[in-house]
């Protein structure tokens, strides 16, 4: 689980554990935003990121396959298989590609919360 919690972080209830397929992702609606939430069951970890693929600007990352590269958790966009770190949002497959926003996730019992507005977001998505 992502440990970073900054003061300003605003946690919202995303969904229940059972709503997310093991080792896969779902898309969460938060106000007008879309957030991809992943359950990396093999590692017992949860990650959240923007749902928007920065390359083609489509709402698709939640449908991508997750995995790891030298231990670093990542997601591959279903469109063109560009991969992004779920730890810090960096594009791993193409240094010219923008990074994605990642969000902290916390678990309480079987309820999943995503933190927005906190310090961990790395915003590199051009408007």
């Amino acid at each position, binding site marked *: 689980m992502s440990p970073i919690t900054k003061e300003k972080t605003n946690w919202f209830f995303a969904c229940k554990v059972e709503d997310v*397929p093991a080792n896969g992702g*779902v898309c*969460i609606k938060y106000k007008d935003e879309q957030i991809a939430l992943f359950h990396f069951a093999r*590692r017992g970890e949860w990650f959240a990121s923007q749902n928007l693929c920065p390359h083609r600007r489509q709402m*698709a990352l939640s449908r991508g396959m997750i*995995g790891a590269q030298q231990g670093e958790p990542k997601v591959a966009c279903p*469109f063109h298989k560009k*991969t992004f770190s779920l730890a810090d949002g960096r594009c791993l497959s193409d240094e010219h590609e923008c990074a994605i926003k990642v969000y902290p996730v916390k678990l309480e019992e079987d309820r999943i919360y995503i933190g927005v507005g906190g310090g961990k977001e790395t915003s590199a998505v051009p408007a």
Partner: protein
Amino acid sequence: MKIVVIGNGMVGFKFCRKLVERKVPGLELIVFGEERLPAYDRVHLSSYFDGKSTADLLLAPKNWYADNGVRLHLGDPVHHISPGLQTVTAKSGITESYDILVFATGSSAFVPPMPGTDQKGVFVYRTLDDLDHMKTAARKARRAAVIGGGLLGLEAAKSCMDLGIADTTIVEYAPRLMPRQIDQNGSAILQKQLETLGLKIRTNAYTTSILGDGTATGIGFEDGSTIPADMIVISAGIRPRDELAASAGLETGSRGGIVVNDRMQTTHANIYAIGECALYQHIIYGLVAPGYEMADIAIDNILGGNRTFGGFDMSTKLKLVGVDVASFGDPFPPPDSCRVIVFEDQVAGVYKRINMTDDGQYLLGGILIGDASAYNMLLQKVKNKMKITGKPEDELLGARSTGEAAAGVLGLPPDAMICSCESVSKAAICQAVEDGHETFNAVKKCTGASTSCGGCAPMVKDLITYTLKSQGKYVRNVLCEHFGYSRQELYDLIKIRSLHSYDEVLDNIGHGDGCEVCKPAVSSILASLWGDMILAKGNDTAQDSNDRYLANIQKGGTYSVVPRIPGGEITPQKLMAIGRIAEKYNLYTKITGGQRIDMFGAHVGDLPLIWEELIAEGFESGHAYGKALRTVKSCVGSTWCRFGLHDSVSYAIRVEERYRGLRAPHKIKSAVSGCIRECAEAQSKDFGIIATEKGWNLYVCGNGGSKPQHALLLAADLDSETCIRYIDRFLMFYIKTADPLTRTATWLNKMEGGIDYLRNVVVKDSLGIAGELEREMQALVDSYKCEWREVVETPALRKRFTHFVNAPEEKDPSVQFEQLREQKKAVEWK
């Protein structure tokens, strides 16, 4: 030290990047660029019409400059320089002083002086802005003409076609295309190839004016003839941008270009010029590789070194409108000084020419059209002045198998330049491998080889393989960092250990957490071994996204649905059902290339509803998604056609129903034709069947697509049952032994012994496995289930088909459509 660079093009950027990498203490680097965008890949400019965005083409994102301490002024051309004061002044008024000034102003397109070039509808082909203007104009244009049949002209013509202007003419003054690179016979072959693609070509045509009255309407020739055109692209050569240098008193050439010495210094020692604006020994180098070399040499000299430029080879290899064209060394030396060997295949559109010294000992250069696979090796032989050892004609026919090609790489001297874009030698690559960089990506990262044009990739890969082998390492084509096995080894291990889910496989024979490479590969093996429902047993998240949603994700994030229509036969009722369902869910419909009906634009949440209705009408999963059997096309056959020998439709349906849903290393296509007229195009399929007087001929390992290859005859005059048995064996053998994402054609090309070996295995059962292959195939056939039905009937699976898990009834609000010919279409990529 304060360095100012004028021009942020390909070479100017390379200069900056290489300089930044040198980490010079106290360096101040300032760059002025005239264009609105930072440096982008001009070489692949045309791919902008082919799906690439500006972001794809950028050589580095905007923030690269700031992150590396480079001050970049965009859209701000330098207007004045004062070599005495050592200052430059830009249009905005910004003035900067410098210790060293570097010109990297490139060239502009040369527009010949003739009337009419300033009208609307006339374009040049050089910058992204030029392309944007063309894009806008192309919407209304109906006929295009490109003036200039050189390398760029041909590319521009292809772009016109990509923009949807089917009527495009290339006009060339010389008697042949690409006059600087290829000879008359080569040009004739190229011309024929281009014409089959729909381009019109006029050589010996001297353009004297552009017609029109403010808006271009055509072009006029010297002989008084004209052709109509409302979009005209001028590609008549380049003009070095030397105006600023000239006005500052630097010496320039009589036909343009800033004069430089072999250290890239202009007539002012602290002012350098590199790239397409630099004139070195009366030559302007219009390619990136020499420009990059100039950047390197300038840096070396600025930092106190003394490397010098010694000219550069102008060899090029490119793919023009899908046709390989390469010229290397000296493509046409004076005829009496050399020996020439030519190979020509008019039907296949292949032309190859090599020039050798009189005694046949050394290669001088040559031309390759239609098949340039031997280019890298031939180029190396020219560059390194290597002696021809075998028969000279063997050089021409090229390395026939990868084995020989790689052996060729071994024969190169250590200082042979493998990657000319990045100046990486053979020794550097071998050293990197010896230092433990054992994969292509690792070598790429460590040496920089293959990071520009990518043309050297096959040689780099061969070098890695052979360096590893020479170290006594067993070279395996391992899947990825999570599995130390090839696909074939994994297949055997999974079967022997009876592993049934991705996680089981990873836990037992892999390590780490898996990735997007091994997950689908293992899933495909599991599907072809056990025939379980593809989403069953928690395997769904190990599936490629298309397999996971049993539909293809398309532009915009919606899905396409393609019901199976075996053999392409369909009743009017079923046609109406498709029409009704498409209308109800507002789907765009199109007949596919494989006799199916494609329905686009389905929201993920609608998929189960659409499938449910299709199933009720008697349809089933069409595996247009996933690596599986796609379609078995059929012609009309003996039921209706006056030529038909057998009932090709019934047979196609039988074949399709047998192999439907079959998972394989790659997609599989098939067809059945009722006679040798071949209306179903069976010989371009992974397996194809053609009726003969005595039965069926079975062809295998053909491929349409980007690298077409004709299928080869595996067995002739088969009865229907035998034909099926051979297909069983063939497909199962392919599934068990091919690498991931390898089509049957490539699989066969790599197979030692080729089609004869394959025929021995399949027809003569030389390995004694035919019975086993047939049994395994039968098991898969027996376990077939419609995947859509499984989802529709399984609530747990069905639940996964929503866009928002916390608002399941809502559709993705970001999905947008535009109108197109009375239907909808996905909006363009931004």
